């Protein structure tokens, strides 16, 4: 019932937004860096679609992938003989705090958690991003070409996340992935109830968490209804038609209910994830991805049936009670059911540099537990599945003609501790080259430190 009403509201709300001067505020100013048509030959290609191509070629031109496979390569373009080296889609981290918790991690850089109220859907992580965080350069050297920057998990509703292309710019707008939907960071469990419980404030319990979210969805529904009523009156030419007051919090939540904003839900315990799915059904929205999900393996079937991804770690566990049941097969088990959507995420400026190693560990544990997980399957965890989670799967995350040429050439099999990203392309532009210091970006912060001897 509810979802039908919402569907009916959708065009109206969209027209409201469209008629607003702030329809796409803080727009992306990202433009691909200069590129030239480039052909990679004799590569071992993991396409991200589940395929592995041996001794294959990949052509990038106009910032897009124009050819992948065996076959006749066109002449007259810059050609790189990979000599059997491995090529994958650029890696995507769906959970990063680069820029909002930049390095150095001083108080002045602590911009990721607006813990002054448990419900802050009005804040946008992008407004905290410090584009000079040295962490972006390290992630790039690890093969990361796109990443979502999220608010922290101190709040029940933490605010909007933003997806970036991993290029340096003087503004985050210059990094913003064009057209990527916003995410909404929400959090279950211990963090919000600890933060606010210690202040003798709601929520101090898990049931308090739930009551608080539900109140917000009810308010968001009313906000949608109020706008719809105003639109109708206005369309009917009623003189007393006055628009509701614009509310940044409710605007974000309405964006979730009308399907424009993807929910990224920090949740560890299996039972809580199931409860959250019920809440989404109650209010007619969908959860895009559960993040951290240390117990996701316990409900892998439920996640797959609901088309929800699990963005997970290979082995982190035990740092709090809700992370006590962590197992190393978590990612592989979430990947197991038909439709399972497992993602390797970092939540860490260290982990984002080694997503391939984390995937290698998870792949190994899955194989040892009897699951058939070749590299061409596991690579999806940090490419195609991550792109799906962020709503950018039609543009990046796989090596298919027409997709953005976000590509990594590795020095060997990426599922190894010794593997290094050699060359990283974003939209066809070579933005990192391990063999060429001139193509290794350095943030303003690091420039000239330590009497110039660093790095």
């Amino acid at each position: 019932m509810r979802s039908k009403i919402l569907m009916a509201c959708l065009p109206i709300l969209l027209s409201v937004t469209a008629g607003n001067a702030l329809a796409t505020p803080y727009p992306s100013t990202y433009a691909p860096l200069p590129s030239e048509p480039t052909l990679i030959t004799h590569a071992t290609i993991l396409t991200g679609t589940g395929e592995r191509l041996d001794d294959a070629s990949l052509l990038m031109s106009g910032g897009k992938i124009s050819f992948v496979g065996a076959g006749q390569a066109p002449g007259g373009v810059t050609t790189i003989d990979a000599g059997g080296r491995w090529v994958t889609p650029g890696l995507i981290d769906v959970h990063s705090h680069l820029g909002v918790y930049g390095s150095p991690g001083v108080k002045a850089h602590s911009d990721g958690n607006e813990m002054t109220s448990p419900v802050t859907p009005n804040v946008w992580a992008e407004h905290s991003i410090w584009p000079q965080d040295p962490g972006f350069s390290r992630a790039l050297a690890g093969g990361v070409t796109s990443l979502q920057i999220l608010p922290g998990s101190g709040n029940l509703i933490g605010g909007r996340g933003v997806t970036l292309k991993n290029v340096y710019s003087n503004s985050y707008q210059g990094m913003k992935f064009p057209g990527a939907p916003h995410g909404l960071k929400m959090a279950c469990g211990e963090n919000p109830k600890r933060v606010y419980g210690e202040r003798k404030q709601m929520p101090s319990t898990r049931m308090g968490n739930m009551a608080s979210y539900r109140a917000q969805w009810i308010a968001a529904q009313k906000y949608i209804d109020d706008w719809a009523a105003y639109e109708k009156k206005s369309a009917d030419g009623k003189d007393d038609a006055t628009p509701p007051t614009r509310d940044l919090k409710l605007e974000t939540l309405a964006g979730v209910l009308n399907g424009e904003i993807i929910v990224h839900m920090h949740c560890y315990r299996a039972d809580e994830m199931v409860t959250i799915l019920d809440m989404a059904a109650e209010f007619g929205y969908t959860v895009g991805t559960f993040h951290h999900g240390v117990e996701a393996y316990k409900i892998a079937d439920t996640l797959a049936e609901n088309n929800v991804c699990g963005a997970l770690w290979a082995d982190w566990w035990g740092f709090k009670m809700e992370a006590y049941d962590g197992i190393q097969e978590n990612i592989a088990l979430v990947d197991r059911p038909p439709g399972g959507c497992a993602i390797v995420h970092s939540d860490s400026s260290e982990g984002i540099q080694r997503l391939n190693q984390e995937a290698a560990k998870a792949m190994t544990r899955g194989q040892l537990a009897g699951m058939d997980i070749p590299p061409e399957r596991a690579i999806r965890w940090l490419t195609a599945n991550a792109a799906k989670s962020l709503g950018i799967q039609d543009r990046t995350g796989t090596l298919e003609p027409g997709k953005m040429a976000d590509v990594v050439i590795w020095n060997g099999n990426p599922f190894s501790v010794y593997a290094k990203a050699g060359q990283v392309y974003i939209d066809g532009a070579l933005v990192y080259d391990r063999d060429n210091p001139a193509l290794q970006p350095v943030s303003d912060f690091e420039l000239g430190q330590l009497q110039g001897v660093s790095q």
Partner: protein
Amino acid sequence: MKTSKVISTLLVACIALPVFTAQAQTIMIRGATVHTMGADGTLADTDVFISDGVVQRIGRDLPVPQDIYVFEAEGKPLTPGLFAGISGIGIGEVSAVEESVDDGLALTEMRPEFDVIPAYNPNSSLVPIVRIEGFSYTLLGADAQGTIFGGQGSMVRLDGEFGSFFGDPVLFINVGRDASSLSGGSRAGQWMLLNQAMNEADSPPASTETALLTRAGRGTLSRYANGGKVVFNVDRASDILEVLKFARSYDLEAVIAGGTEAWMVAKQLADANVPVLLDPLINLPYNFDNLGARLDNAALLAAANVTIAISGAGSHNAARQRQMAGNAVAYGLEHQAGLAALTINPARIFGVADQQGRIKQDLPANLVLWSGDPLEVTSVAERVIINGKLIPMESRQTRLRDRYLPENPEMPRAYIKP
């Protein structure tokens, strides 16, 4: 791995009934690539015979007695049990559950006599979880919470026994950024207070009103002042040089832990014969003490003849120590040096090389048989032997895994008790 047919009956019985006694067993590992981490180097296709908790023989084609455990290694690597770094394994169960964590003293008076040993619980879930990943020992650390003195810790063997401590006690001191809030807001204040404390240990103050230490604390520090092992948690190059000066003044055997800028003072460390325990993954300026963090810190230190060991993966994820060493190798450290940084080096640094860190005849048998390169993320420990005991490859994590591996069980999984 194949097992010898001669004794297959016994092996099947052992596998079916994983009841392991506290007693050491008689075990033969055949045809391994044995990384002795000692003068014998790496031995191809070699057998290791273990009984009474000790490596009895190392050689080729050793005779196989009846009714013993035999493992055919088929050339796979056999290494000493690995070092889990400075950790709180067994003295902390869930980090955020305060009452389950005992690795630090939050008192604001200086209590260097604090010792974490009585808090150690071998029944912690972390002990099996970490050891089945190939780790046979760790250094229990005392974490400075209230003052710049963390207190004392000890080496412990991860055999799950009560009282498996070995080696001399180790004192922990925090200096640099982490400790400035514990010393009046200035790192210069740390040296003022540390010097005052050392002087008190030497000659107690006339009036207790100005004393920093208790009588026990003075006793503790005076014991270390005669060549005791002191771990300094410190990163910045200039602070490391201050540590060297301080250690020289009081005849302390300093060990640097952290040391992200140690490469900048590698020569001074080598000259002073001061080793470094480091996390080779740190390559970001997380704070102003490690602007010089870089991935080849380990390689640069080793090249300058500084003894290095891996530490910093923490307690729950201590198994990441292997990955850390592998990354150091990826960034220039020799592979064998990477292995040494997890085995013989930490054992030598803390004076326990007769217990851990190498495979040698007549020494306690702490061994791991690997599926492949021990530093590779796609390798796993297949067999772990601690003090001559075959460790069951089980933990709370493997039991959770085995509970949830079966698909669509009829009854709730609470009835699946692997």
